């Protein structure tokens, strides 16, 4: 995007190099200072805290470079919650992919105005308020909600059980909220596929499944990976959706971290949880970035 080669042209405005340099520093200052003070320094402080210890009686933090907080993280209760949380975010990402792919494919096969309208139709719900989008499912999934009643009618749900405050409810909420982020990159990848390739595959005797598996799917891989990043990353650190649809029963990683800071007040342990979440997301990004680069090379 920015990589367009731009020769390091001499700033024509001034000839004095000293004055020019001070201009340049002044341009860099606002962003750099803000990022340092409110982003980099706090994260560093958090990493330092994660190796600290808290006195339960006085709530004083001491810094002893202990690994206790990280050991506690491997504790059954927390590990269980974290793994279940990851299960939900992976499930939701796959859900988005399964729901989003046919939609993106259908849109990519349309032309002109219809295509624009359909794309807009996918995007508009994304413009509505995030809380409201999640809240909308409270009605549907509650005990006498539309979805619960429909499932009961079909015999898929027993009379006593309800969907809200379950992992299923949280997963549905994430799929609903992030679906546009999956459809858009898929659409971009699918739209680029030359219809002649499909024609050629057809002429060579490939059925619809053969065409999909051998032509469409491999060529849309960059879109699949990009979509999984766009959905998977925010879903891993999700806070609002489980707070609304998970109640107190179904917590996700983000809620566990926040509770340590806001309710328990154990900053060192909370920091260890937060740093681990950060590493998890960064690791996921590094792995998928390599995959994305390779997939783009092929197509």
């Amino acid at each position, binding site marked *: 995007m920015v990589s367009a080669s731009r020769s390091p042209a001499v700033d024509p405005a001034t000839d004095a190099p000293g004055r020019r340099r001070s201009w340049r520093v002044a341009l860099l200052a606002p*962003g750099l200072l*803000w*990022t340092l003070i409110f982003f980099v320094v706090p994260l560093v402080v*958090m990493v330092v805290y994660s190796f600290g210890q808290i006195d339960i009686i006085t709530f004083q933090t001491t810094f002893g470079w202990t690994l206790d907080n990280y050991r506690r993280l491997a504790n059954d209760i927390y590990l269980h919650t974290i793994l279940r949380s990851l299960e939900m975010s992976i499930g939701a990402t796959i859900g988005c992919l399964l729901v989003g792919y*046919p*939609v993106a494919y259908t849109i990519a096969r349309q032309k002109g105005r219809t295509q624009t309208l359909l794309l807009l139709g996918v995007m508009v719900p994304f413009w509505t308020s995030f809380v409201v989008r999640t809240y909308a499912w409270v*009605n549907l999934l509650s005990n006498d909600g539309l979805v619960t009643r429909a499932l009961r009618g079909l015999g898929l749900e027993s009379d006593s059980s309800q969907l809200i405050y379950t992992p299923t409810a949280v997963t549905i909420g994430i799929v609903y909220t992030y679906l546009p982020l999956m459809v858009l990159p898929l659409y971009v990848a699918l739209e680029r596929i030359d219809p002649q390739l499909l024609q050629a595959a057809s002429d060579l005797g490939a059925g619809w499944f053969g065409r999909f598996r051998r032509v469409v799917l491999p060529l849309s891989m960059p879109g699949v990976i990009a979509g999984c990043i766009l959905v998977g990353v925010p879903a891993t650190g999700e806070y609002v959706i489980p707070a609304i649809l998970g109640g107190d029963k179904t917590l996700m990683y983000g809620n566990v971290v926040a509770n340590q*800071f806001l309710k328990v007040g154990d900053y060192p342990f909370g920091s260890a949880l937060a740093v681990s979440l950060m590493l998890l*997301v960064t690791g996921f990004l590094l792995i998928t970035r390599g995959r994305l680069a390779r997939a783009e090379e092929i197509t």
Partner: protein
Amino acid sequence: MSHRLPAPSAVFTALVFVFLYLPIGIVVLNSFNADEALLGWGGFTTQWYSQAFSNSRVRDDFVTSLQVALASTAISLVIAVTAGLWMRRASTRARRALDATTYMRIVLPEVVVALALFLVLRRYEIPLGVPAIVAGHVIFNSAYATLIIQARLATMTDVLEEAAADLGASPVRTFRRVTLPLLMPAVIVAALLTLSFSFDDVVTSLFLGGPNAETLPVLLLGLIRLHVTPEVNAIAVGVTAITMVTFGLAAAVMSIRDAAGVRTGQVDPATLEAEEAK
């Protein structure tokens, strides 16, 4: 290809559209529902809206949301434009380094970033509240704004600016009369997007607002967890309308800009003449 639409995927797409619009549709419908228990349709009413509008907490939170959104947008734009201009002349390595910090501000979980700031504020006993929320919002908003401004700058040549300088315009005047007008579409899009991101944000506003400041989405989150009332639906529709209008405007400006893409990048002789005259 357009006529060989495979029926199953079209049907499925139609169902997905129902899935996308039905939940919000029900919220909108219920905000006009006279049945207080929301068990069925009790007739049309606007009483929940008048109740919400006369609720002083809703009004206060709306003002707080607006303050936060405007302040964080203004600061984010300054950061984005200056960073963008700096990047134009920076070495590839320096640019990559700044790019990395921009992306990190977007991709790291908001929960973590907001809590890190929370931790520092607590440690140095700096009170939570509107300034803290603004500080937090600018972290991600300035990153989005920088990406938008950068994308625009990447398509611009510096011919016009060089011409203005050759004609004797000072750097400040060149920026004001040439660079900024060319950047304007991107600045508007960035402003609208950051306004709506800020107005819509829950996590940072919740963690950094503390007991001193509450934005509308945070109020809504609290009300939802308490219990659902028809008034909540009315507030929800109000908040949604605000975010939707700003997002919609951003999209509209973007598509106008795309349509007029060539024109905005072109040499505007009037600007040059004006500079020459001075």
